[in-house]
């Protein structure tokens, strides 16, 4: 391939890849995707918001946090999305039963008797900086189910 042909080829490939990469900038409204993204994460203020969580409850009524792999898989963000979607799509009870099934076969969670799925309102501005900041401002229970062994 001649130098001129290489130049033309490189410019064409460059235009294609560069054009694809910057294309999300010109979408209105902007839409995040993969691999084309305008990288909107961490760009706007996080106000107080509801976080969907799943907890296990033992015989004494004490709540225990459940690790992401019990909820979805080892990726915490995927677990968060799984809970959020289940609540939005009114499938909380269905997900609760799935989680209870996984808890039932986990030795590490043998003490848990019930599973709860809740939305809890947290204010990130207070959570770590005020003594009672980590207490939810509001709780909404979506589902509770028994762990059957």
């Amino acid at each position: 391939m001649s130098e001129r042909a290489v130049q033309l080829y490189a410019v064409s490939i460059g235009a294609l890849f560069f054009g694809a990469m910057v294309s999300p900038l010109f979408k209105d409204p902007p839409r995040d995707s993969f691999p084309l993204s305008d990288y909107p994460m961490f760009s706007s203020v996080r106000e107080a918001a509801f976080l969907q969580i799943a907890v296990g409850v033992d015989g004494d009524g004490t709540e225990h946090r459940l690790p992401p792999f019990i909820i979805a898989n080892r990726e915490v963000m995927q677990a968060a999305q799984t809970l959020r979607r289940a609540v939005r799509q009114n499938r909380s009870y269905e997900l609760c039963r799935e989680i209870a099934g996984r808890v039932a076969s986990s030795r590490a969670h043998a003490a848990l008797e019930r599973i709860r799925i809740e939305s809890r309102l947290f204010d990130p501005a207070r959570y770590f900086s005020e003594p009672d900041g980590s207490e939810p401002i509001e709780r909404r229970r979506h589902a509770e189910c028994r762990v059957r062994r």
Partner: protein
Amino acid sequence: MQGEAVRVPRLFEKAPRERLAILRILTTGYALGFLIGYTPNLLSLTHLGPAQFTPVGPVSWMGHFIEGPLSQGALVAILALTASTGFCALFGVFYRFSGPIFAALLLFITSYRSSFGMIFHTENLLVFHLGVLALFPAADAYSYDAGRRERGDEPRLVYGAPLGLISLLTVTSYLLAGIAKLRYGGASWIDGEVLLSHIAWDNLRKLELGSIHSPLGALLCRFPSIFGPLAWLSLAFELFAPLALLGPRLARIWVASAILFHLGVALVMAIVFAYPLFGFAFLSFFSVERPARSILERFRARRLVRAV
């Protein structure tokens, strides 16, 4: 790296074939490491069910044909094919075919990973870089293909152009992130409010969801005044990324800043962008063939001494 060891490739700069080959080996090696490391997580996506499946990017076309995630068998087959072509690309076996097929399959796999409601931004650059490498003769050295054909040793444009393109794409991705911060956050970003709120939210979410959070990030949230300067620094690093293309010294400074930036993100948010954090994303800025040559020369010298 000192002096000439740091190179800022331009689109039309010539380079030795070894440089592109080393980039192929390291980038493909990283991609294979990612693929193998994430295989258990990828396989567990099958359990998430159709309601969770929201195809993005190249996986979107699947939405026209199937209603939910791939079956375990189909996913295992695709992962095996991706790994096989990846090893062929790594060793430069029929790279003209294995390179593009591996790049396309990895694009599919990474898009599939992001098709369950959570879009991950950790592999964007990797798939772009692999795509560019696949379209150039990156296996003309240190490969099976190179052993089959004679190549000249002189630097050529066809080996240098992809390095420039990869560097251009790297700085562009950071510039886009900087523009997004101004576009969506504006003044709130500049005074550090956005940064503080995200570090706090990300850590509280991890805590509440029973995952590993950053104690350092949690501690820093008690001192809001430090987030203003941190926000300025990170915004400047992103917006001035294209300066890295202007000269070796600027490139060196920017690459060091980029690694520090990602180290900071890992320390305060427990989010690891491994591809840039460990320097793989910035290899195109450097004369990566020099350490390889030096290692090979030492190896050959030892063999010669043993033979004598």
